[in-house]
């Protein structure tokens, strides 16, 4: 069955430290991959997405993610976090073709807390 796993329910880092949030997927073929962020009591916003090509994709606010086919992973990274990055981060996957109905499968989310 297709699935997206975020093994860390909660991550706490100090402001200015580097960050990695983990995401593993189980999917037939190579899916489209996404990271969304949800700030408190708001909807989800797209951070970045991977379709093909360069395995490292850049997103907003200094976030990047690296796709690994061999490891079935799509980890999110940031070199230096800010307190405003505190939020819930969701990894998601969908079929890698247009017209598929955009049916995304979401992971359970990782709550990031940034300590001042």
């Amino acid at each position, binding site marked *: 069955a297709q699935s997206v796993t975020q093994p860390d329910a909660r991550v706490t880092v100090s402001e200015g430290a580097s960050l990695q949030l983990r995401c593993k997927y189980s999917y037939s073929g190579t899916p489209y991959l996404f990271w969304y962020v949800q700030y408190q009591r708001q909807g989800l916003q797209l951070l970045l997405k991977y379709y093909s090509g360069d395995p490292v994709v850049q997103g907003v606010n200094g976030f990047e993610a690296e796709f690994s086919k061999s490891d079935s992973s799509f980890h999110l990274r940031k070199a230096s976090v800010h307190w405003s990055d505190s939020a819930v981060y969701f990894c998601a996957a969908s079929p890698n073709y*247009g*017209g598929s*109905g*955009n049916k995304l499968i979401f992971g*359970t*989310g990782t709550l990031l807390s940034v300590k001042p």
Partner: protein
Amino acid sequence: EAAVTQSPRNKVAVTGGKVTLSCNQTNNHNNMYWYRQDTGHGLRLIHYSYGAGSTEKGDIPDGYKASRPSQENFSLILELATPSQTSVYFCASGDPWGANTLYFGAGTRLSVL
């Protein structure tokens, strides 16, 4: 200006009552979706639609109906609300040829007592 707008933002309902959650999008996207968000489960797909007049079952459709009367509007209906349906509900829209990116509303927090 929010492109996906949900109403109400908060709702308290009684068990057995009828609840309608509304969603309006100005993205002119064909596809619309209803998800619920629960701790430990992430987002789970309830119903979705490919366009006006169409509704499809998602992964957890039991106890929910959906209605898509127009390109812009997509409603989620709980005919007989139960406490297990207490959750945060998100509506989203997407362009089927836009590489599957979804655009979300701000959510509706529903409590069924």
